[in-house]
């Protein structure tokens, strides 16, 4: 789960992380009042994507007219802060990470300034290849770390730590030396690094990124921008974090899917996919991409209905898929295991009947009681196209979608 910058800072504050004073605001008036506390202040739009400083704020979701150049602004007066806020609030911020869409700005974080000596990159994440958490630091603060990794990997230092004990002093010290820090800077770095690691472990975070972590002219470290994401599976033990979830930032279909324990990811194509099992669902997305190509078809989504695909779940999945207006056909790919194919066929047919499905439906079944399942579909009298195997299903779906689109126009 993601949270906004200001929320991650509220969490880090509990661990005494070094932070500048800041106030989250939702109106331009609040912004002006908040900025009065600081004189000079930084006006930061709060959306879930990175690259805000270099992004562009547009007046409308279609990103036609520019409202402001940059989603993070230094304001030299409360009035200026207010003016920036007016150009941000309710508007749409597009960054390298939001892709072709813009994200609406609903909250602004007004933050104090500090005197920056130098900027560093600092993050904590799980290194899957060794199943251990690690700290990653770089002298290239403020830059996109993947760019740094590509252009100057020697400037990135990684260090694994024991999740049971956290970051040891000698480990934090080693990182400090690798960053070229000296004297009191080292002490302050160790303190900050240990605080951040403790916050990461305590909150079941799966990514804590501070970019930049700045060294002030007073040799202190300061968390300037921070990003935290959390392990969804562990949210039950952090109700105060769970309630920070901002559903307005997420795709409504994905929200509905999550709320119903379905794994759904929206993609750009026109073939809605419903599959049981994450691996098979991925393979189905692949197959649609490959076999659908000659008909300009592509997968509209990834959707894993999980093990127990009953009629209720199938209906819910169909509804989520059909929310997407670009879907021209649905491909169902089920390997019946414990759940038998005839039961699944029954569920699919029931859903089709109740929902009065108007777009082509292609069904590929395999596994337990496959013959019974196929027979039920054939005899149902409904317009359901049976596929022999997955390539066949993809081709049939792609063709049917092309025809449907032609007919619909």
């Amino acid at each position, binding site marked *: 789960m993601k949270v906004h910058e200001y929320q991650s800072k509220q969490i880090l504050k509990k661990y005494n992380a070094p932070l500048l004073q800041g106030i989250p605001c939702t109106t331009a008036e609040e912004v002006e009042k908040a900025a009065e506390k600081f004189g000079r202040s930084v006006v930061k739009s709060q959306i879930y994507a990175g690259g805000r400083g270099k992004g562009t704020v547009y007046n409308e979701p279609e990103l036609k007219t520019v409202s402001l150049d940059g989603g993070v602004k230094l304001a030299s007066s409360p009035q200026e802060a207010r003016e920036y806020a007016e150009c941000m609030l309710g508007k749409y911020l597009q960054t390298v990470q939001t892709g072709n869409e813009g994200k609406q700005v609903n909250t602004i974080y007004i933050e104090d300034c500090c005197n920056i000596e130098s900027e560093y990159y600092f993050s904590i994440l*799980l290194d*899957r*290849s060794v*199943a*251990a*958490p690690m700290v990653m630091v770089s002298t290239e603060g403020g830059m996109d770390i*993947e760019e740094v*990794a*590509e252009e100057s990997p020697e400037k990135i230092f990684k260090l694994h730590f*024991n*999740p*049971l004990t956290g970051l040891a002093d000698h480990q934090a010290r080693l990182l400090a030396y690798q960053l070229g820090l000296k004297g009191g800077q080292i002490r302050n770095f160790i303190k900050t690094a240990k605080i951040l690691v403790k916050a990461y*472990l305590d909150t*079941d975070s*799966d990514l804590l990124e501070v970019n930049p972590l700045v060294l002030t002219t007073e040799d202190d470290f300061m968390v300037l921008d921070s990003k935290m994401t959390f*392990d*969804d*599976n*562990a949210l*039950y*033990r952090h109700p105060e974090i769970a309630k920070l979830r901002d559903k307005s930032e997420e795709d409504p279909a994905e929200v509905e899917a999550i709320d119903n324990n379905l*794994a759904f*990811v929206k*993609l750009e194509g026109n073939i809605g996919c419903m*599959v*049981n*099992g*994450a*691996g*098979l*669902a*991925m*393979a*189905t*997305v*692949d*197959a*649609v*991409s*490959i*076999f659908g190509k000659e008909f300009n078809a592509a*997968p509209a989504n*990834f959707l*894993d209905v999980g*093990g127990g695909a009953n009629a209720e779940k199938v209906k819910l999945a169909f509804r989520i898929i059909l929310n997407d207006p670009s879907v021209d056909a649905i491909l169902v790919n089920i*390997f*019946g*295991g*414990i759940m038998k194919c005839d039961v699944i066929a029954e569920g699919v047919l029931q859903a089709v009947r109740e929902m009065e499905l108007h777009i082509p439906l292609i069904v590929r079944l*395999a*596994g*337990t009681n496959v013959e019974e399942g196929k027979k039920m579909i054939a005899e149902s009298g409904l317009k359901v196209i049976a596929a022999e*195997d*997955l*390539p066949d299903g993809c081709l049939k779906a792609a063709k049917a979608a092309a025809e449907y689109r032609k007919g619909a126009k």
Partner: protein
Amino acid sequence: MSVLVDKSTKLVCQGLTGKSGSFHANQMLEYGTNLIGGVSPGKGGTNWKANSGDEKPIWNTVKEAVAAGANASVVFVPPPFAADAILESIEAGIKLIVTITEWIPVKDMLEVKHALKYNDAVLIGPNCPGIITPGECKIGIMPGFIHKPGTVGVVSRSGTMTYEAVNQTTQVGLGQSTCIGIGGDPVKGLDFIDCLKLFQDDPNTKQILMLGEIGGDSEERACEFIKNHVTKPVAGFIAGTHAPEGKRLGHAGAIVQGSCGTAKAKLEAMASAGITIAENTNDLGNAVLRASGK
């Protein structure tokens, strides 16, 4: 001969009295697995009645199950308590722990991994279909009937993809020695390399089929291992070749970040390790045939 489980396996089911545990325990018993009882704290001393009418003892602790002869356990305990259940089995001396439960917090699994380093227990999963030696022992939730005793060792990060693979290797007439679903979580027990070692050393396994997916680098490391240590023919498949970057596709492990974990990198690693790559999900059985020169 087989890998990890066979007729001598004596299984205890942690969470037997739950809905999911009870359902799959019946399935396992029907397949012929020697399930000796279950652990459900607070219900010790009662009996669990199988669909067949047989009764199995319920214990309060895994320690008691081990005293009764259990040497393997399968975990159907809800996510908040699952890691503790695994730790209990490790400490009680269980040597093979198959964890079906999904949605276990990463931090819990890190503690489990830590405990595994001190003990010679083997963990499969979590969030996996389990392990089966066809005709001998099934521990997990896979449909037993599609399996057939044979020669292909199957190892997979995903469940239903395994079933596709099993189905096809059965259909082309090879059958399976043992199938292991290692699960799609980022922190797990057995990984590809561990399974490849077991298959390489198992005389009954004549071919290996490895089903990977995007995310992480365990397929790449497995390919490196195959290059240097595996002499048996290997076929492979990667799911997620057309997945968008930065999106998590169902499995917590299936996410491509930057240049790490891409399908391209994994397919290249497979090719360079001499693995026969299946062209699509329909080609799994035939790829094994091609790999073994048939």
